[in-house]
C-alpha cells in the first residue's frame, strides 16, 4: 500500500516538475524573443544568438531533457496555449514599437505558407518552388476584393480559396510528373506568375496595388489602439490576427500529420508503388496536400498584403519562393516547430544586423547549401509519428 502511494507520488512529482519545466522553458523563450525583437544593439543581438546556439547544442545533450520532452508531450495543450500567450505577451511588451511588432507579424505570417510547404513537401513529397506565387495570389485576390468593397474577412478566406484554385491548374502536370519534372513545373509557374503580374495593367502592373487596412466587423486594424492612457501601435491588431492564423495552421498541420491522412501522405512520399499496391489513392493524396498547402499560402498572403497596405509583382518572385523553401529546409523538413527558429533567423536576423541586409540572399543560399550538405535534417529533425501523446511505446 505504501509502495503504491510512493510510486504515485513520484509520478505526480515528475508530472508536476514536468509542468514547471514547460512553463519555465516557454517563459524563457518568450523573454528571449522579446529581447531579440526589441533591441537595436548589435552586441545584444549577437549575444542572444550565441545564447540560442549554445542552448540548442547543449539542451539535447542533458539527460534530464528526455524526461522533460515527455513532459512537453504530456502537457501538450498547456504548452501550446502557453506559447501563444508568450507570443501575445511579447506583442504587448512591444506595444509602442511599431517596427519590432511588424517583424513579429512578418515572422508569424511567413510561418503559415511554410507550414503549407511542409504539408506539401515534408509530408507528401510534392516539390513546390512557387510558394511565393500562391502567397501573391492570395495577396492580389484580397486587394482586388477589397477594392470592390467585399468584407475583408471574406476577402482573406477568398485569398486562400483562389490560391488553391490556381494551384489546381498545375495538378495535372504535378500528378503526371515526378521529382525534377515536377520541380520544373512549379519553377516555371512561379516565373510565369510574376511576369504575368508585371505585364497586366488590370492588376496594377509593375507599380502594384494599394490596399486598405483590415476592417473586421468595424474594428479598424490600421488605427492605433488606446488602452488606459497609453497608445499601442496598430500593429498589435495584426499580431493577434497573425498569431491566431499561425496557431490554427500549426494545430491543423499537426493533426493532419498525426492521423491516417498524414500516414497516407508519408506512404506516397516514401514509396508510391507500395502505397498503390495497398490501395492508397495516390492522386487524391497529392491533390489534397497540394491544395491544403496552397490554401495556407494564399490566406497568409491576403493578411500580409492588407497589413503592408501595398503589393507589387516584385514582392512575389522566384527569389521569395526560395526564401520560403530556405525557411522550411533550415527548420527541418517535416517539422513545423522548426519553422519558428528558422523564420526568426531568415526574416529577423538580416533586419537586426543591418550590415548583412544587403548580402542576405547570398547568405541564405550559402546557409541552405551548408545545411543540406552537413545537417540535412535541419534544426529540428522530424520525429516518428506519435498519433496521440504517450503512444510511442
Amino acid at each position, binding site marked *: 500500500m505504501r509502495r503504491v502511494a510512493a510510486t504515485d507520488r513520484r509520478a505526480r512529482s515528475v508530472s508536476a516538475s514536468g509542468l514547471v519545466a514547460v512553463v519555465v522553458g516557454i517563459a524563457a523563450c518568450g523573454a528571449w524573443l522579446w529581447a531579440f525583437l526589441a533591441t537595436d544593439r548589435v552586441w545584444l543581438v549577437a549575444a542572444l544568438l550565441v545564447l540560442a546556439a549554445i542552448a540548442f547544442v547543449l539542451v539535447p545533450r542533458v539527460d534530464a531533457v528526455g524526461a522533460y520532452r515527455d513532459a512537453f508531450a504530456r502537457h501538450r495543450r498547456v504548452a501550446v496555449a502557453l506559447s501563444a500567450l508568450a507570443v501575445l505577451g511579447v506583442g504587448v511588451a512591444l506595444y509602442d514599437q511599431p517596427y519590432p511588432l511588424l517583424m513579429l507579424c512578418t515572422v508569424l505570417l511567413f510561418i503559415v505558407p511554410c507550414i503549407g510547404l511542409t504539408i506539401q513537401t515534408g509530408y507528401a513529397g510534392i516539390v513546390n518552388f512557387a510558394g511565393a506565387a500562391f502567397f501573391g495570389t492570395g495577396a492580389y485576390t484580397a486587394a482586388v476584393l477589397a477594392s470592390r468593397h467585399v468584407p475583408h474577412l471574406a476577402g482573406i478566406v477568398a485569398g486562400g480559396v483562389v490560391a488553391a484554385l490556381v494551384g489546381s491548374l498545375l495538378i495535372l502536370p504535378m500528378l503526371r510528373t515526378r521529382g525534377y519534372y515536377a520541380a520544373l513545373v512549379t519553377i516555371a509557374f512561379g516565373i510565369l506568375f510574376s511576369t504575368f503580374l508585371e505585364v497586366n495593367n488590370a492588376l496594377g502592373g509593375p507599380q502594384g496595388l494599394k490596399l486598405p487596412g483590415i476592417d473586421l466587423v468595424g474594428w479598424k486594424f490600421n488605427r492605433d489602439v488606446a488602452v488606459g492612457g497609453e497608445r499601442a501601435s496598430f500593429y498589435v491588431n495584426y499580431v493577434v490576427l497573425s498569431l491566431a492564423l499561425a496557431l490554427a495552421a500549426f494545430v*491543423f498541420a499537426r*493533426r*493532419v500529420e498525426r*492521423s*491516417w*491522412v*498524414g*500516414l*497516407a501522405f*508519408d*506512404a506516397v512520399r*516514401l*514509396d508510391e*508503388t*507500395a*502505397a*498503390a*499496391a*495497398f*490501395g*492508397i*489513392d*495516390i492522386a487524391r493524396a497529392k491533390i*489534397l496536400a497540394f491544395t491544403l498547402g496552397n490554401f495556407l499560402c494564399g490566406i497568409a498572403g491576403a493578411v500580409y498584403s492588407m497589413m503592408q497596405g501595398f503589393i507589387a509583382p516584385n514582392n512575389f518572385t522566384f527569389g521569395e519562393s526560395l526564401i520560403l523553401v530556405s525557411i522550411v529546409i533550415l527548420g527541418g523538413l517535416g517539422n513545423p516547430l522548426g519553422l519558428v527558429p528558422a523564420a526568426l533567423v531568415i526574416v529577423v536576423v538580416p533586419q537586426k544586423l543591418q550590415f548583412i541586409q544587403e548580402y542576405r540572399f547570398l547568405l541564405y543560399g550559402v546557409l541552405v547549401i551548408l545545411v543540406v550538405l552537413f545537417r540535412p535534417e535541419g534544426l529540428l529533425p522530424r520525429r*516518428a*509519428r506519435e*498519433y*496521440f501523446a504517450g*503512444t*510511442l*511505446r
Partner: protein
Amino acid sequence: MTFGGLTALDALDLDVAGGEILGLIGPNGSGKTTFFNVLTGLYRPRAGRVEFAGRDITGLAAQKVFRAGIARTFQRSRLCLPLTVFDNLMIGNHVRLQRHLAFNVLRRGALRREFDANVEASRALVATFNRRLATRLFDAASALDMIDRRRVEICRALVSAPRLLLLDEPSAGMTHGETRELMDDLLQVRAARAELTIVIIEHEMNVIERMTERCVVLNYGEKIAEGPFHAVAADPRVQEAYFGQATA
C-alpha cells in the same frame, strides 16, 4: 507481357483454387515476379485475362486490385523505413481506416478509439509471428533486422484480411531455421483463416515442398509443368530448365 523486345510472359494459363497454397517456381528471369506484377495491376498485359473470384480484373489499377482482396509482398523489401512498424502495418490496412480529412482533424476522440483498436489488432497479428516483435510496434522499421522486416512485410499484406496473398520469395536471405520459423507462422495464420489462398514464389525448394499442395513451373514466361512438388521435381523438362539437362 512484353518489355520492348523481350517477352516476359507468354500464354500462361493458370487456375488457382480458393483456399489452396500454390507454389510458383522457375529459374531466374522466367517471369514469376512479372506475373505477380501483371496480376496486381503494376503492369498492363498486352493480351489475356485475369479473373478473380468471378470478376474480371484484367488491367485494373493496383489500388482496385487490392480492394478486390489481393495483397502481396515484394521481392525487394519495400517497407517505409523511416516510419514505425505500426505505421507500415497501417499502410497495409489503409483502405479499412477512416480516411476523410474532416474526421482526422476534427474527431480526435473517435480517431483515438480507431487507433487503439488497430494497435491491439496489430499487436495480436505481429505476435503470431514473433512475440518480441510485437513489443517493438513503435520502433522505426529501419531499426529492425532483415528477418523482422520480412515478417512486418508479410503482416502488412495480411493486416487487411485479403482473400489472396501473393508472397514473392519470402525466405530470400534467411537461414534454414529462420525460414522454417516463418513457414510455421504462415501455416498458423492459414489455419486461422481457411479461405485464405496463397501463391508463393520461391527458390527455396524446402518451402515449396512443405507448404504447397501444388506448384507451377515457369520457364521463359511459359508454364512448363504443373502438379504436386514431387511430380514436378521429377519432370525432365523442369530439370532441364534448372540444370540445363535432365538428371538421369
